[in-house]
């Protein structure tokens, strides 16, 4: 009885791949594992992509700040909505970030001390953004500023420029 069972099992079309050392069950197990792995990996990729928003309702990074005559010579003007200082020196204009390079607090221009100070951890910057004291690791970023054909100034916060670049008007 058992012999005949063995012989039918050997000849059975169910188990043709015995010679290769893998059964149909092994094949399906492997195929299912790979399929589940691909599906799992795919869902991780899709979910990760989902977490990063495509449209942000944040202030524009490039904005007009009016004509140069709005800014008197030797002045520092803070624009609270854009968190930017517009500095006009004898030579011309430059725009610099008001965000402290240490941990992102908003700095304040102190005209009586002629410096930019951060209230969070006491970093101090010169008017040109270079670090004077405190834990700030880098000088304040300078943004590109240019004169539009219609006479307005335009600041682009995505374009970081070297502090030596000054717009002469």
């Amino acid at each position: 009885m058992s012999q005949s069972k063995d012989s039918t099992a050997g000849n059975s079309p169910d188990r043709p791949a015995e010679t290769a050392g893998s059964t149909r069950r092994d094949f399906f197990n492997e195929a299912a594992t790979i399929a589940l792995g691909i599906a799992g990996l795919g869902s991780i990729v899709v979910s990760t992509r989902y977490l990063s928003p495509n449209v942000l309702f944040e202030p524009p990074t490039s904005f007009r700040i009016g004509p140069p005559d709005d800014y008197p010579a030797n002045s520092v003007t803070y624009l609270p909505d854009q968190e930017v200082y517009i500095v006009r020196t004898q030579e011309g204009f430059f725009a610099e970030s008001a965000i402290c390079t240490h941990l992102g607090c908003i700095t304040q221009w102190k005209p009586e001390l002629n410096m930019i100070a951060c209230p969070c951890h006491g970093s101090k910057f010169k008017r040109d953004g270079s670090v004077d004291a405190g834990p700030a690791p880098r000088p304040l970023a300078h943004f590109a500023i240019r004169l539009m054909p219609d006479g307005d100034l335009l600041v682009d916060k995505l374009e970081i420029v070297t502090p030596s670049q000054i717009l002469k008007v």
Partner: protein
Amino acid sequence: MTTRSTHRALDQLRDTRVWKSIFRRGPARTNRTRSLAVFGNLFLHAMPVKVREESLRVRATYYLGSFSFFLFVILSVTGILLMLYYHPAVPMAYRDMKDLQFVVSNGVFLRNLHRLAAQAMVIAVFWHMFHVFYRGGYKPPHQFNWVVGVGLLLVTLFLSYTGYLLPWDQLAFWAITVGTNIISYVPFLGQPMRFLLLGGHQIGENALLRFYVLHIVILPLAAVILIGIHFWRVQKDGGLTVREDHERKI
């Protein structure tokens, strides 16, 4: 006299069909049936059937783990009640918090209970960790439960941190500004991690909503799972650590 009659009444209650259908056993009159009653109860089965007398003394643990768990329960209850009046959206969040303080009946009590219990839980969890450390509770066979405990410490700190943004006041805004800027110092992944956590470049609507979801769903769920493993492993690893000389005395 009264205790004996209460005991008899309870015994009779445990012999009823309704009791037996709910708890699957009758009165526990022997140590064996008492053990079976603990084993057969969903809420108690992770608990030890027997404990060393030494581990029940106050100075053995100062009940710091139980105290942390008790605070977690208080935080869950008060947190769910606070959710009934709180909208995680930008103009409303701050107003809802002020409403809770000045308009809603007992709102200020619940809010302060939630806030103080949160601060107490951070202290209790740290104290628990120091106490376990000085008792040598991280040594074999308790190594894995120490790791779970470190996970619980991190979850507690993240819960505390995400909850900090929800009042949407100046303190919250600047604390999260500084904290998320610390994240951006991570090499290579820092900026993307900050962007994903805030859902943008700035702390705004998206950041508030993300911190809210983390605070009320993801982190508490992680805490509940880790707490379950933590309690279960205390029993599986042979009970609480007691001082060896005390153990020998027993």
